[in-house]
């Protein structure tokens, strides 16, 4: 049998060598109590202040590691040996159970209970065993305290590192998704949460526009279709503060943190431990809230960046794209059509007699007509089509994947809608018509400037032949 001093030395060493792994340290030390002090069973139960219970952390017996009892509530249950030991702050020998319960206390803070017994061999605790466990208990107090503190500090360091990394990313990139991915990935990979999800809202509609998530295995996913969870997420958005999704019967396994910038909600972050079932604390909630605050800045910056970018390509009067953007997109769409062997059509539209209209009704009325016609055009084209203000009253519309017949149908719809629209200015009514020229890639040309020129040519052919009409370039050449 080793000397007590030797046992003390080994116990301290085990705690020190496994400072980051309390379970391993306890296992090794409890094994010493079985092997060298001769107990049948040794267990450490730690207090969970949140749940007010004592929870078995490690149990070792002469038969190896064994199934232990469940949680012990810390209520003053009459005669409960755990509670008795803790209440009086000193060991409690329970002869009926052949055991002794030693409270683990560090600087007046209750950590838990060390329980040793001879329950299998039904031997009473000997005086030597009692003396040794009394001597060893302080080493457990220090070891467990240090280990828990170490884990706590390590976790704090990881959290701070995560915050710093996200902060650096915000300062060095304008790419929102890169930062969001980094943040979500840190929550799972570094901080050990099971999963993290972000639901971003569309500014205009307030509906979810994107869901970014990282799962338990670290796989990142971006989804546009969030219809299945839309109502659930919208219900979360009613909350202003971070909160656990626990209600009456759930543990704190899901945290929902609203993301808002200057009071305006831009999304919601959901972090869960639904697989590991590790309950979260208020500290988790506070920390996640800090992350959410940082992300709100990223989302806002990105929104502003998109807004500036949008303004630089938008015509302020009509809300359509501008001349520069039209040419950029036309190049892109021609390349795409070329790559996929697809058609592309171009509509060139001009308001008839617009100068006369301006002279009669005034320039303010002219502006109103332009923005109304722009709205009519937007209503009659698809989301993939690109309408741009090409010149004063001239509009160019790119129709990807559309042949000349398809373009004619769309053009006819626009012409008809404009003609039927009731333009009223005070007591007066104006009839507005449009002339439209059409070209098709690659049939009419494969060169950008040629396409535009030929569309213009077709448009002026209509202008010269009575206006309020449509003509495809290939057709007007024949006429």
């Amino acid at each position, binding site marked *: 049998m080793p000397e007590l001093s030797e046992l003390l030395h080994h116990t301290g060493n085990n705690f020190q060598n496994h400072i980051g792994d309390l379970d391993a340290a306890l296992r090794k030390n409890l094994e010493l109590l079985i092997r060298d002090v001769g107990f049948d069973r040794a267990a450490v139960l730690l207090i969970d202040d949140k749940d007010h219970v004592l929870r078995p952390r490690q149990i070792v017996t002469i038969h190896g590691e*064994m199934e232990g009892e469940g949680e012990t509530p810390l209520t003053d249950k009459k005669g409960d040996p755990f509670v008795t030991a803790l209440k009086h702050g000193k060991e409690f020998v329970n002869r009926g159970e052949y055991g002794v319960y030693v409270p683990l206390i560090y600087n007046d803070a209750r950590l838990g209970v060390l329980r040793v017994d001879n329950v299998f061999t039904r031997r009473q605790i000997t005086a030597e065993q009692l003396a040794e466990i009394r001597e060893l208990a302080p080493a457990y107090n220090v070891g467990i305290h240090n280990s828990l503190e170490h884990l706590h500090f390590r976790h704090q360091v990881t959290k701070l590192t995560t915050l710093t990394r996200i902060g650096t990313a915000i300062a060095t990139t304008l790419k929102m998704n890169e930062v969001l991915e980094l943040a979500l990935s840190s929550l799972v990979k570094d901080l050990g949460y099971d999963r993290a999800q972000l639901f971003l809202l569309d500014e205009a509609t307030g509906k979810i526009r994107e869901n970014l998530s990282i799962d338990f295995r670290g796989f990142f996913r971006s989804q546009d279709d969030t219809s299945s969870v839309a109502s*659930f997420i919208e219900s979360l958005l009613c909350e202003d503060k971070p909160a656990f999704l626990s209600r009456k*019967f759930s543990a704190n396994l899901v945290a929902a943190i609203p993301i808002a910038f200057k009071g305006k909600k831009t999304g919601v972050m959901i972090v869960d431990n639904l697989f590991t079932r590790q309950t979260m604390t208020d500290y988790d909630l506070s920390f996640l809230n800090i992350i959410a605050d940082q992300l709100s800045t990223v989302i806002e910056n990105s929104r502003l960046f998109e807004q500036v970018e949008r303004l630089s390509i938008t015509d302020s009067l009509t809300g359509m794209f501008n001349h520069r953007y039209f040419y950029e997109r036309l190049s892109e769409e021609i390349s795409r059509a070329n790559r996929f062997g697809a058609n592309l059509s171009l509509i060139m539209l001009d308001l008839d007699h617009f100068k006369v209209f301006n002279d009669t009704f005034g320039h303010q009325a002219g502006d109103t007509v332009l923005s109304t016609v722009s709205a009519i055009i937007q209503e009659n084209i698809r989301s993939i089509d690109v309408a741009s203000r090409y010149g004063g009253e001239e509009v160019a519309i790119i129709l990807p994947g559309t042949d000349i017949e398809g373009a004619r149908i769309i053009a006819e719809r626009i012409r008809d809608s404009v003609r039927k629209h009731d333009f009223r200015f005070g007591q007066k009514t104006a009839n507005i018509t449009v002339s439209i020229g059409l070209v098709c890639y690659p049939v009419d040309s494969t060169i950008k400037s040629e396409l535009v020129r030929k569309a213009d040519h077709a448009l002026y052919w209509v202008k010269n032949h009575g206006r309020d009409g449509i003509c495809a370039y290939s057709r007007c050449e024949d006429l």
Partner: protein
Amino acid sequence: MTTTLKLWVMPNAGFESQRLIDRELTFFSEKNPKIKVECDILSWSQAWPRIIQAVKDKTGPDVIQVGTTWIGTLGYLGAIQNLDTRKINRAGFISTFYDICCCFGHLWALPWFCEGRVLYYRSDLLEKAGLSRTDLDTWDRFRLACAEVSRLRVGGKAVTPFSFSCQKEQALTQDIAAWIWANGGSFLSKDGKHAAVTHFESVQGIKYFLDLIAQKFIGRQSLDQSTGEVAENFFLNDSSAFLVTSSWPLQVYLNASSKNYVGKKNAAHFGVVPIPAGPAGRFNFAGGSALAVTSFSAEHEKAWKLVEFLTGRQSMARYCASIDMLPARSDLPVVLNAPDQICKVFSDSINHNGRGFPTHPLWGSIEQVVLNGFVQTLSEYRHNGFNQSGFFRNLEEMNLEIENILSVFGE
């Protein structure tokens, strides 16, 4: 060169756990001299966090024992290997358990041993009340039988018909499930996307069970005891006539040759029957354990050999007989330290009446909500009596919380 495999199992045979698994490993090593197996016995409460940590660290044992309700989660997380390409004789396993090991279209583990819930009864008390086994066959007859037993007095003391623990233990959900299923109810919708606790059939199933408490057919004292205490009282005292549990008491209370044997007082006066059939049929919770190869095992093939061996006919027959659990193979007879009639009832409990919980990746969290909900409902019930609005409020809350979990899961 010798390869060392790590195996994690739970204490399947109480104090005998290490010895009995080591015996099987010795047989394995005789057949595979170049494979050494080190086995750790983990407590059930420690096993889940240890396995999950191993999954996160991507390092740990090569083979693990998994509770059948864990398979969905571990499979979904990719913690265990799918066994689709392995050569397995599916017909060799009891289909209920083989199916439980299959989730999301893949096989993740091989059934090792299983358990089915049955109704234990005290034959002497039944006889005294002028009843027979057949009087326990259906819900209606069982209720009448409880009424008859409640009129008995033994040694001047009244007998409580039914002992049932309502403490916060997983067994509570498993035991109440039988009454929900027997009424055609369920916990989740068929597609696993919605909660079904408030469905009419589920509600009425729970209500039938609560009525047993209201009519004082379930002893108030037992409600406050743990499942272990309830069983101990059933087998060692005369306090009640019926108890629902699995096969473990056979070893502890009835098999004098078992090292876990603690008493024999009523050994001659008990029998088992299937849990009473409800309007939708007869069901009982069937669970058990399976063996799986971890996805982080560096020795897939050797680990698979170990799984094949332990789930093989010889080893399973030997191991199950020694731990008083039911073998999960269809080509093995149910051999328990009990008369044939008892073996037959247990055999039916796994082959015909057995049902497992839904194999949803988040079942563990869902089960916790169900458990807490039941504990709260039963607590309110026994302290304040039946209150319809309170009862429905609890069920609706459970339903909503399960819906929330399913929504957060988002798949």
